[in-house]
């Protein structure tokens, strides 16, 4: 067991920003808009760093797929305690069309390349709300999956997981290697401390292209139109 955990972190529009649709209805405005790490990805990073602090795993590798700016998101993960980063460079049209299927192929390829024991992801991204990447990655690797995790504990080469599901809480035990997706109550992510931000500068981020991993990022989906939801009408009491 390599003791290595891959954590996926996605750069998304900050949760506090008021989203506006572009005038040509092809998407939302992203230029000049504040971006940050997807909140569920923060929870995933926190869980990985905690496992490392308990000495249950040896190395945390943060991965992000996107343009140059994705490196900022990786840096945040490094400042929280990840050891090194991998930036999968996807930009322009490819980035606009990047979805869970392509990302899960990339993560699966990286997991094999890095000999990962565990993949930790957020349960979903707050921009597309897909909630698919974790599940697809596990399927591609034929690994067990523990999604919507609100508690994780390692027991030898197995993982005890508590999942938040519609009916309540489900307790499962899965083998490693595995994919886990983090739900809201799994933990409270730490602030990166000032000294850690400074230390993060010395940690390495390696850039690779999807083609290097043998992944084709062409999308099989085409976005036809993006619209605002209908204006809410005043209610009547």
């Amino acid at each position, binding site marked *: 067991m390599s003791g290595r955990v891959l954590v996926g972190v996605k750069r998304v529009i900050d949760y506090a920003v008021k989203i506006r649709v572009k005038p040509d209805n092809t998407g939302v405005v992203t230029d000049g808009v504040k971006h940050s790490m997807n909140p569920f990805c923060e929870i995933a990073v926190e869980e990985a760093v905690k496992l490392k602090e308990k000495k249950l795993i040896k190395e945390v590798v943060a991965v992000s797929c996107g343009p140059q700016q994705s490196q*900022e998101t990786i*840096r*945040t993960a490094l*400042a929280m305690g990840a050891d090194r980063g991998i930036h999968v460079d996807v930009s322009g049209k490819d980035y606009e069309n990047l979805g869970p299927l392509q990302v899960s192929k990339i993560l699966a390829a990286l997991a094999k390349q890095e000999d990962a024991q565990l993949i930790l992801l957020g349960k979903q991204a707050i921009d597309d709300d897909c909630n698919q990447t974790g599940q697809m990655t596990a399927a591609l690797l034929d690994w067990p999956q523990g999604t919507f995790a609100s508690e994780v504990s390692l027991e030898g080469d197995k993982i005890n997981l508590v999942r938040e599901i519609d009916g309540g809480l489900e307790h499962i035990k899965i083998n490693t290697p595995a994919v886990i997706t983090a739900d809201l109550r799994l933990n409270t992510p730490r*602030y*990166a*401390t*000032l*000294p850690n*931000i*400074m230390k993060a*500068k010395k940690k390495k981020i390696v850039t690779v292209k999807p083609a290097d991993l043998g992944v084709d990022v062409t999308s099989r989906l085409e976005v036809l139109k993006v619209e605002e939801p209908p204006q809410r009408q005043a209610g009547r009491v």
Partner: protein
Amino acid sequence: MHTDIFYIQVLRAGVRCGIRLQSSSTATASATASSSSPAPPLGFSFELTDQQKEFQQLARRFAREEIIPVAPAYDKSGEYPFPIIKKAWELGLVNGHIPQEYGGMGLSSFDSCLITEELAYGCTGMQTAMEANSLGQMPVIIAGSDAQKKKYLGRLTEEPLMCAYCVTEPGAGSDVAGIKTRAVKMGDEYVVNGQKMWITNGGKANWYFLLARTNSDPKCSASKAFTGFIVDADTPGIQIGRKVAAGATGLAQRALDEATSYALERKTFGKVIAEHQAVSFLLAEMAMKVELARMAYQRAAWEVDQGRRNTYYASIAKAFAGDIANQVASDAVQIFGGNGFNSEYPVEKLMRDAKIYQIYEGTAQIQRLIIAREHLGRAKK
């Protein structure tokens, strides 16, 4: 810029004879810490380095998530916000000036000011309590022996302890040379008698930096008559009874943001008040003042980090930022109208808090004396 205001007082009041003043330590720290951006082709740049942006983000998040929610309650109770200061200490937001070899971050003045502005946005009272640590540390950092630095700075980096800066007295504030606290050497010890006033962190400090008169000859020049002492708080006989321009800018920015949000929500005469020209002009002028205050303190901090004496820029920044903080806070209350008076809205606190920036760390009037002196000094050359 309190760090450099103190620098002047050090020169004027004279802490110990024969000291090496090392303002260059911050310049070298900034050269290594912030070298991630390539040198801008035009020379002059307003761009922050990636690391500076991350520091700013951290302080901003801390202010919004930890300080702002609790500030009104602490304001009412007057309780010392130790839990918040402890959290800030754990994140490395306090004690930024302490050099790295003594366990600190060795941040440049510019980086420290960036952080100060963000914390002040949350609550200037808490930011002042945190900054007072820097004030007390500064004489030790500038002029302490290696042993003194290791002991007293080390204490602050190992545990969330506070220190305090004791210079002002009931009879002497602006007139530092007029302080009456005396220290007399008796054998192996100094016996200190006197009264100090307005000591931020006075009740909670682990140690004090104290300025006292050691030469009672009235003809002795100010630079030789005074000595700085580091006094442990538990020394028997002590009875307990404030990075200014950046702080003032943070307050002003907060006032502007609160007023802007309100102006976009409150409706009168059929439209949001921000669409009434009188209000939008008020907001425009507030914005002008905030931006200029920020540029002023950043220039002053940058000068220090370049290794230059920045008295002129620091005084300008402090005087301007203090004045506009008061104007902007008052304008914010105005925009809130009747609600502005009400303590359930945050702006009346800003107006109360803003006043201190025209008083402590060199009154607005003293700043003008200094600026005039510097300006005329240059003109005479």
